[in-house]
């Protein structure tokens, strides 16, 4: 059951290129939020532009606080990054289905700002390997440092970690120790991961993004093409079994 609350910002921190850590006091949400779920975050302004809330995945939820990792990609996220400690933000959550905890090993594949929900999963699950890729070292986010799980970090330009794409070693990781794969990131990365998983016949879950209005499943605005008809990202997802998705119709 989601709640809609005004929540106080307790910390805002610029942690990487255009990337911010937001911590909020929200006990009602923190106790319920599961990895892969998200919140609709409002601006708390008396003005109507921007009008819609923005979906953000939980990066953490503990001790009555929730944490988001926010990457500025447009004006809405810029405005969210510009808030100050003590401000009140409207938060509706937790929303969406979240990841299902696997039986055995979890192989998490995070591309760019796809990291937060998977880092949250890594903090809650056992027997996890986290693959995380960014363009360059300065974009790398702090979350993996806080995790004790096995990690494989890559940058495209090799400025930190392994040089290459996050998916380059996925096959190797699966072969080394099979498990369930969970991915979040840009669509081309998801498609690559899904291809690899299909080749090796391992189960793969993906967390998808779509523009949202209600965030709760009421407006039918955030649909993506699934094998048998449209699915709502906000309510039926954001996490889908890769086999459910009509990847061709999805576009990039």
């Amino acid at each position, binding site marked *: 059951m989601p709640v*809609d609350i005004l929540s106080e910002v307790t910390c805002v921190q610029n942690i990487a290129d255009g990337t911010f850590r937001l911590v909020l006091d929200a006990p009602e949400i923190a106790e319920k939020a599961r990895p892969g779920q998200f919140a609709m975050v409002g601006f708390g302004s008396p003005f109507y532009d*921007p009008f819609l809330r923005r979906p953000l995945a939980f990066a953490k939820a503990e001790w009555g606080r929730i944490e988001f990792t926010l990457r500025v990609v447009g004006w809405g996220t810029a405005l969210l990054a510009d808030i100050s400690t003590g401000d009140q933000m409207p938060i509706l959550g937790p929303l969406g289905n979240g990841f299902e905890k696997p039986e055995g090993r979890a192989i998490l594949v995070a591309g760019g700002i796809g990291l937060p929900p998977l880092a949250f999963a890594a903090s809650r699950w056992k027997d996890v390997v986290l693959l995380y890729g960014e363009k360059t070292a300065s974009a790398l986010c702090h979350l993996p440092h806080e995790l004790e799980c096995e990690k494989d970090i890559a940058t495209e330009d090799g400025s930190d970690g392994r040089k290459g794409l996050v998916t380059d070693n996925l096959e190797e990781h699966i072969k080394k120790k099979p498990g369930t794969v969970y991915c979040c990131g840009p669509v081309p990365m998801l498609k690559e991961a899904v291809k690899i998983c299909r080749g090796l016949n391992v189960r793969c879950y993906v967390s998808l993004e779509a523009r949202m209005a209600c965030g709760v499943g*009421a407006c039918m605005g955030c649909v993506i093409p699934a094998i048998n008809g*449209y699915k709502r990202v906000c309510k039926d997802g954001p996490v889908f079994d890769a086999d459910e998705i009509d990847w061709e119709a999805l576009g990039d």
Partner: protein
Amino acid sequence: MIDLSIRIGSLELKNPVLTASGCFGVGREYSEIYDISSLGGIVTKTITLRPREGNLPPRIWETPAGMLNSIGLANPGVKSFIETEIPFLRDIECVRIVSVAGETIGEFVELVGEIAPLEEVDAIEINISCPNVEQGGLTFGTDPVVITELVGKLRPVTKKPLWVKLTPNVTNIVATGKAAVDAGADALCAINTLLGMAIDTDTRKPRLGNVTGGLSGPAILPVALVKVYELYREFPEIPIIGIGGIGSPTEAIAHMLAGASAVQVGSGLFSYPRLPLDIIESFEEYCDEQGFSSVREITGSLIIPEI
């Protein structure tokens, strides 16, 4: 104590605040967030005869102080709706309105025929104003002759109140409203969305999969108010349900002042899911401030200074 109750024809509502079609589902999702029985009423997503997948995504685009949608009446069809959604409405203690849209007059008649016997439904909203479908929608809503015929054919099918939802995409909303009233509509709902579009200048493509969509939200408030005002001046005896641009209680009050007997909150729900509850509270305060003892006194109490 302020009397918040209103009447729309034969229907009694405990307060004048409803949710607008397409923005609230049947209330299932929002009922997880708060008690939707405290609303004056709810209007379901528009239901069609056959299931509709809806339009190609993206279906949503944010615009200055508003949004475009091109959902395209995605719904499971009336049969499945009656099976899976109507039971949910049974225990909702507010007025329950089902919105319907057909591609032909025959389909409308069939739809109303299916809905009419259901005791879980208190009124039927006739959606002749959806800009996002090829058949029906605006082709019905813009022609007074067609409206008269349509409503005239529906009137004998049910004793339930028939509300007709009008489009603002017309030269003269008083003409389309009159057509509905003359043919026996119990209330006029104004407005549905304005036709609009948005363009991604980088890719040079439309932002919506369906190219065009319906504009809603605070951006359209001034247009909605003038339509309600025009209808109220012409039909002071016909209840008008004000819809469009309500993003805070002030705009709901403005709709009532312009002549609405009740309001529906649409995309404002997305910014503030609890907005309808805030509006109900504010109506009470407002009546207090203005010295009104009933919320009904707000309706049409706009003061036009003499020039």
